[in-house]
């Protein structure tokens, strides 16, 4: 059977069609993904280009309110940028960092988990101790500390310039133990199965067995946690940016937009905080709901409560 045919008959698709929450979340997430992918085409203004906005437009309310301007549908932020465009670009940054951080932590975690599970021995004990230690400290604390240290080490200007790759590394480093443990657990379950023994008898070397035979069979749990991890990474990024340890206001993510807007909430400019906040919550919520659904479908045994 071709992959597409197989997918059409799979249990995954069957249960997807019967779950309205999954369909809605997937639909919303897909729309958000397309918007952030095509941001330069969709956004009314290019907010990265300083020539397109004017400080005189700052704090214009949404267009339907008194004093609103039809040019700016959701109003403008404190620098006079069109809020809708800024949010679209912000969503793009949040998306990029969220997915990037999860890919990074998955690569590190899978490598560590695979080595530690398959090779065992002293290496296993050492790596898992390391994971234990980091696991006992909340990931947000690790991320905040790492970001603070990077900021001091690089200097503010350089840090803001390199913010996207640095945040991917910071958030990735704070969450790898989860992957390492998950992968190690399933490698331990796989490594004594017959197909691995057969591969060993044929004379494949350890690297081939680990990454071409065992690895594909450990992917289900990795997939299950990945979706939820993206939501976590997006939240971490928003928190770091809100604390001023993340994206600078010149290239804002949703978190740094909220930070900037918060300072003006007392003067009544609620929209600068409100719209990015709502977008952030919707974004996280649909990922979480989709992750919950995926976990229930792929691993019914895990479900509790």
């Amino acid at each position, binding site marked *: 059977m071709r992959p597409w045919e197989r997918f059409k008959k799979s249990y995954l698709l069957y249960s997807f069609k019967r779950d309205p929450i999954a369909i809605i979340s997937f639909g919303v997430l897909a729309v958000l993904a397309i918007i952030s992918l095509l941001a330069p085409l969709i956004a009314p203004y290019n907010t990265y280009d300083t020539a397109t906005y004017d400080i005189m437009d700052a704090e214009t309310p949404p267009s339907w309110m008194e004093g609103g301007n039809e040019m700016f549908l959701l109003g403008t932020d404190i620098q006079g940028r069109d809020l809708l465009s800024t949010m679209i670009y912000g969503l793009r940054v949040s998306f990029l960092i969220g997915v990037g951080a999860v890919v990074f932590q998955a690569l590190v975690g899978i490598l560590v988990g695979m080595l530690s599970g398959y090779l065992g021995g002293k290496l296993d004990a050492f790596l898992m101790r390391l994971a234990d*230690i980091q696991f*006992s*400290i*909340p990931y*947000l*604390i690790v991320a*905040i*500390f790492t970001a*603070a*240290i990077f*900021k*001091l*080490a690089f200097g503010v200007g350089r840090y803001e310039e390199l913010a996207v790759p640095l945040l991917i590394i910071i958030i990735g480093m704070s969450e790898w133990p989860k992957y390492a443990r998950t992968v190690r657990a399933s490698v331990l379950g796989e490594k004594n199965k017959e197909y691995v023994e057969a591969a060993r008898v044929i004379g494949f070397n350890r690297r081939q067995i680990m990454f071409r035979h065992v690895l594909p069979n450990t992917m289900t749990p990795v997939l299950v946690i990945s979706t939820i991890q993206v*939501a976590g990474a997006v*939240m971490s990024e*928003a*928190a770091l940016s*809100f*604390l*001023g*340890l993340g994206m600078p206001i010149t290239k804002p993510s949703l978190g740094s937009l*909220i930070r900037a807007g*918060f300072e003006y*909430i*007392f003067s*009544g400019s*609620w929209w600068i*905080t409100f719209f990015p*906040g709502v977008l*952030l*919550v919707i974004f*996280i*919520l649909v990922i*979480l*709901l989709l992750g919950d659904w995926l976990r229930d479908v792929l691993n019914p045994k895990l479900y*509790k*409560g």
Partner: protein
Amino acid sequence: MFAFIVRRIIQAILVMLVIGLVGFVIQHQIGDPVRDLVGERVTPAEREVIRDRLGLNDPFYVQYVRFVKNAVKGDLGLSFFYKKPALEVIAAKAPATIELVIVTAIIVILISIPAGIYSAINPRSLFSRFVMAISTIGVAIPVFLTAIALIYLFAVELNWLPSYGRGETVNLWGWQSGFFTWDGLTHLILPSVSLSTIMLPLFIRLVRAEMMEVLETDYIKFAWAKGLHRQRVWYIHAFKNTLLPVITVFGVELGILFAFTILTETVFQWQGMGFMFLEAVERSDTSLLVAYLVVVGVIFVVVNTTVDIIYGFVNPMVRIAGTK
């Protein structure tokens, strides 16, 4: 059991040494102890003399051992900004954070246990469904957004509650407390409510899940068969066994609460340890930053080790699983 405790304590000490190493490296690679001491206006030659006198030209491990020795004695260096020992600065800020965490913990307990039990007993009621839906959405709302929403509603629009700072405090033997003035208490409401929204969804679900599991067990069925009163079965027999896992999780989550105080303290300009930490980052006050790292490390290690040891007493499987 004794061996288990010893092993956990050795592990805790190792973790602290690693955290100390990280702190030490930060202090000496990024920070500049000479600047912390004398400021910027000193000639390079004089600087070199001071470096020598402070032992900053000694080999790495000698300095590390000295750092650890000082740290054990409670000396974590001078804060560049405050011109005071870093630990003193932290101690002055700690009451604010501790009071915030205490009030939050009380709110979490008072809400999550009744709500969890109710929705376990009546899983199909409207209230239970509402609670479960809210707790699903609640997980997706970052704490700083909750805090901002609360400020906007209760401080900006309704003008009922103060939005920042600690208000009036009373000095009790060096402990600046906001518990004893009306002003201090009203200032506590918004920060602690928003901090508690991090834990509430998790705890309501936890209490509910544990309670539902207990209600399925044989001894509860036996209690029903004996004809005991409903109230007695629910609140005396089932509730007791629900509490054990809840207490364990609570111990661990208390540490996480400390982490999230950084966010709430920023929103509410709450003069606690988290706010101080971010100020230290802005001011490049490396010594204070390292001291905070070590203090938070100690809090986590002590909490985790204690929870593990208590758990070892309660559940023998834990201490056997650890042995090879």
